[in-house]
């Protein structure tokens, strides 16, 4: 049978964001897969350099729609460390509670998406119904269903009232009950197991070699939970157990995620019971002293790292965000090859990909070789490109970038 190449994306019903997976097929088997991302570059890091730290917080919160809290936590931690500020314990606990609620809603979302990818719409509807309950709580806590805006430099913006804690407990009971059912379903339903097990194989060695993070690596028995190995916020006091699994396939990733929801429920309950009293914010200086910091958090999708370099002003000199999916892209090609076309959407979905969060640098390849363009060259290229399309952007003034070394 001759080989055919089909593009999955940039627009495709199974992709929630633009990305292009060029799949070469032999019959129904994938012989080659090329992962193409970069359709949604938003210039986030550059935008951060032109704004103050407190303004950056709002950009960083919008790196990802689902794991918005974990990004802002990582950024706040970095800035707080640069300023030498210790946040109050109550604030640290509220950050943990938010992070775990976010993990619950993200994993329930994933469960629904994964079920939809394999044509199991009933599970999709059920898990999203339960996710709504978590979102309602998040909306009450932060004021928004996503992008809660609870983090601020030096602490958190909103307190957790005792009556709110009871509401959370009531919600946790319902979601826990439902989640037990999903665990049972994941472990026993035959068509589900038939579709998920044995596909998207990523061995323990490959997970280490390709630098997989989060549930993808934990399903390959790599213990990479940042909450355990590099404790931040209140995770030094809240008991955390990293969930690992040795299935090394999509089924394992599903198991890790549903079990992690149970862990999160336990952790939220513990944090609510042991919530310390005290202030919500510590005083932050407006100008951050010179220095650089590397901060990391455990997003629902895996390790999330932020690098912030300060130059003594109220604006950062450099912000680098590496969302969890960026680390997981490398393993996708490896996982796709050798599997069936029918499994391509679910294998891609199994890393819980975030496309826009990962789109960053631009490397242009020419016949002469590889060349990384600097900011000025990139701008020139952009102006010329749009001129050809009849749009002149050369009149737009932008601030010159000052590099302090």
């Amino acid at each position, binding site marked *: 049978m001759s080989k055919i190449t089909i593009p999955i994306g940039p627009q495709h019903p*199974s992709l929630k964001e633009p990305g292009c997976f060029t799949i070469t097929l032999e019959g129904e088997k994938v012989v080659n897969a090329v992962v193409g991302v970069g359709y949604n570059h938003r210039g986030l890091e550059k935008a951060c350099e032109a704004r103050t730290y407190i303004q950056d917080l709002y950009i960083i919160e919008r790196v990802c729609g689902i794991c918005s809290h974990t990004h802002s936590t990582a950024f706040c931690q970095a800035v707080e460390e640069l300023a030498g500020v210790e946040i109050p314990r109550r604030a640290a606990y509220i950050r943990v509670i938010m992070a775990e609620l976010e993990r619950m809603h993200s994993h329930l979302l994933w469960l629904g998406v994964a079920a939809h990818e394999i044509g199991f719409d009933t599970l999709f509807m059920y898990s999203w119904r339960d996710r709504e309950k978590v979102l309602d709580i998040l909306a009450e806590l932060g004021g928004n269903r996503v992008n809660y805006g609870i983090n601020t430099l030096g602490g958190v913006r909103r307190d957790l009232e005792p009556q709110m804690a009871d509401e959370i407990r009531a919600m946790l009971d319902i979601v826990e009950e439902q989640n037990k059912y999903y665990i049972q379903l994941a472990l026993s339903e035959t*068509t*589900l197991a038939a579709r998920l097990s044995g596909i998207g194989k990523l061995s323990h060695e490959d997970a280490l070699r390709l630098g997989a993070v989060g549930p993808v690596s934990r399903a390959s028995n790599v213990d990479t939970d940042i909450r355990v190995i590099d404790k931040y916020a209140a995770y030094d006091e809240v008991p955390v157990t990293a969930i690992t699994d040795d299935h090394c396939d999509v089924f394992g990733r599903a198991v890790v995620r549903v079990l992690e929801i149970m862990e999160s429920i336990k952790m939220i309950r513990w944090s609510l019971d042991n919530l310390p009293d005290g202030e919500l914010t510590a005083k932050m200086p407006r100008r951050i002293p010179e220095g650089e910091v590397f901060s990391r958090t455990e997003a629902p999708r895996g390790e999330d790292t932020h690098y912030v370099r300060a130059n003594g002003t109220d604006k950062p000199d450099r912000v680098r965000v590496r969302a969890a999916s960026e680390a997981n892209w490398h393993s996708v090609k490896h996982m796709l090859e050798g599997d069936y076309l029918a499994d391509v*959407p679910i294998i891609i979905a199994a890393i819980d990909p975030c496309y826009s969060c990962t789109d960053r640098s631009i490397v242009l390849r020419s016949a002469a070789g590889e060349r990384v363009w600097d900011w000025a060259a990139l701008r020139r290229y952009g102006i010329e490109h749009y001129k050809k399309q009849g749009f002149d952007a050369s009149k737009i003034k932008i601030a010159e970038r000052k590099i302090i070394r």
Partner: protein
Amino acid sequence: MLLALFHILIFPGMLFLGAYALVFSFIDRKLYARLQNRRGPRWYQPLADFLKLLGKETIIPEHADKRVFVFLPVMALAAVTAAYLYIPIWSSTSLYPFEGDLIVLLYLLTLPTLCFFLAGWYSTSVYATIGAVRALTQLFSYEVPLFMALLAPALLADSWSLSGMTAYYSTHPLYLLINIPAFLVAVIACQGKLERVPFDLPEAETELAGGTFVEYSGRLYAIFRMAIDCELVVVASLISAVFLPFYPAGAWAGFGVYILKTLVILFILALLRSIMARVRIEQMVAFCWKYLTPLALIQIIANLLLKGVLA
């Protein structure tokens, strides 16, 4: 002549079948939604969808064979509508019964699937081509157990016509219980024929973006959707005619029982659709040949032995 035309065009032909197909489609969607804890569509939603599609622009791909491309949806709908005329509805005999109408029915019901395959093939899109190949692969898997499951009761009744079978089973109603395995096989295999979950591989929205129908739009797609909705009615009617041949006296009572029977079948089909995930094509083929076909074969052997004992 005029009566025949009435039968073909109005009742129980195109108009009634179309209307009932829309009702059926609504009930199917509503049941599916309620089983998924959703509210589901309003009663006129299938009709609204159909009318809206009719009003949309029809785009024919540049590389597609235009005549075949236009002809295929009509062919699919015509085959399904023709098949409906041979199914008994309000009485134990259909409008135009003859010895062997069961075989003709099965043949007419295979035509839509072939149309889906050709539609995908002539669309010259990669998604549609893969969907078309899947439709054909699937055809060879479910068709054999489906045929065997529907012919097993006929063997026992010693008649190749639905009327003959109904006459036989109305005198020996207990023998219907023997056909239960065949009933199960038929219900599962017809999910493949109707391209519904777990066997909706040719369409597989998340993999093939709609598969065989990806290039169809507007009026042509509306006709295809109508053919699929009608096929659901025809298949449910066929299964109820073969496995539940109960016809009380009187046209109105018979008609009511027919509606009830088909709705029961629809409920089973909707339930199957909502509790399962889509399988892979090789899993589908393996399932049909490893489990469904042997089960149908056992049913045929059992029925033959029983026939020998009875004789």
